[in-house]
């Protein structure tokens, strides 16, 4: 049996398939590692680093790091929980995340991750950046104030929808999501039924006119923590 790998996560021995990432192996073993850019139906990306774990003492992104025989993985240590909190806090201060007026509130994976990590307020100053909204498409709104640059829509549009409607432009703090048409989102072949929309973890890429179909208080993460399904 060469395709089976044994490793330890927080002291618990688990068996994984060779070639799996640590995040995938942990999920199969019933261990939740917080993550945002990773999505089980998309190729690993490794940009948000929220899933940072220590593998044999070295920090690694669990969503891109393959399992290895005998690896010792730390995840829920005070140090790593603090790192994850800091990363999520940075995502909050780098955008304009106004939860009370956001249609995604309660279904938002960024918010839910912050709840799970117990973040009351960020330690960093808010930046209040100026971001452009693209509402040109009849059925979709692109609300960049809420974008966390996870690239889920970029990957889903290319890998699943086969449209490549989204990609990044700019670098560093100027990096932003762009659409593949001069005329804005309306000029692309993006549709409201695209995978690119359903995988958006935040309220950035949203279907129009259904924002409050389910009232706040009855949404996915209102009662249940993110990761409680694992």
């Amino acid at each position: 049996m060469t395709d089976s790998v044994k490793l330890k996560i927080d002291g618990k021995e688990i068996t994984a398939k060779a070639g799996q990432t640590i995040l995938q192996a942990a999920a199969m073993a019933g261990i939740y590692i917080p993550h945002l850019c990773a999505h089980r139906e998309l190729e690993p990306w490794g940009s948000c680093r929220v899933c940072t774990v220590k593998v044999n003492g070295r920090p690694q992104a669990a969503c891109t790091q393959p399992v290895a025989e005998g690896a010792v993985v730390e995840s829920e240590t005070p140090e790593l929980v603090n790192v994850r909190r800091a990363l999520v806090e940075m995502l909050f201060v780098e955008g304009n995340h106004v939860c009370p007026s956001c249609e995604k509130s309660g279904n938002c994976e960024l918010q839910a991750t912050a709840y799970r990590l117990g973040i009351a307020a960020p330690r960093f100053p808010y930046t209040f950046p100026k971001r452009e909204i693209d509402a040109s498409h009849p059925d979709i709104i692109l609300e960049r104030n809420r974008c966390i640059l996870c690239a889920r829509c970029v990957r889903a549009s290319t890998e699943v929808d086969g449209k490549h409607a989204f990609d990044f432009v700019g670098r560093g703090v100027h990096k932003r999501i762009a659409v593949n048409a001069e005329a804005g989102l309306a000029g692309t072949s993006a549709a409201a039924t695209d995978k690119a929309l359903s995988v958006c973890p935040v309220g950035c890429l949203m279907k129009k006119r259904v924002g409050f179909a389910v009232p706040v208080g009855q949404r996915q993460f209102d009662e249940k923590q993110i990761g409680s399904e694992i």
Partner: protein
Amino acid sequence: MSKPKVATTSMCGCFGCHMSILDIDDRILKLVELIEFDKSPINDIKSFTGRCAIGLLEGGVANDENYHVLKAFRENCDILISVGECAKNGGVPALRNPIPLQECLEEAYLRGPTVYNPLQVIPNDVEIPLLLDKVYPCHEVVKIDYHLAGCPPSADTIWETLVALLSGKPVALPYSLLKYD
């Protein structure tokens, strides 16, 4: 021994968080057995009458009056609590932050689609608090000891926090009481 004092204020907020304080319903009778309200819109006491154990802050810091009120709360209260999203991150009023202040004033008083202002004057009087360049979260102006999330934080969140602090216990809110909406 006299009861500990609690002060409250609403800065750049909508008074929704104060509504949520009142939403503790009949528990307010228990609360006034435990504490005495000092400076607060609830009893209309305008200035501090003595040292307060707890200050509850609603709203962010949007003008010079908010700034001076917040400074006075820090000086007069042992524990300051940011109550609600506006105190915590500016909230909805902070939607103006990415826009230059001059543009905001021109939109509000000169160019807005429903503006009637034949003299084309932007109000500027010593009686009117001066707007700051942006709306600041309270913890970016003074040290804040606790943050209660929510728009508004539920009455249970406020109640559990006050009871824990007044009885000297750690504030440990369950998952259901940490909400940003």
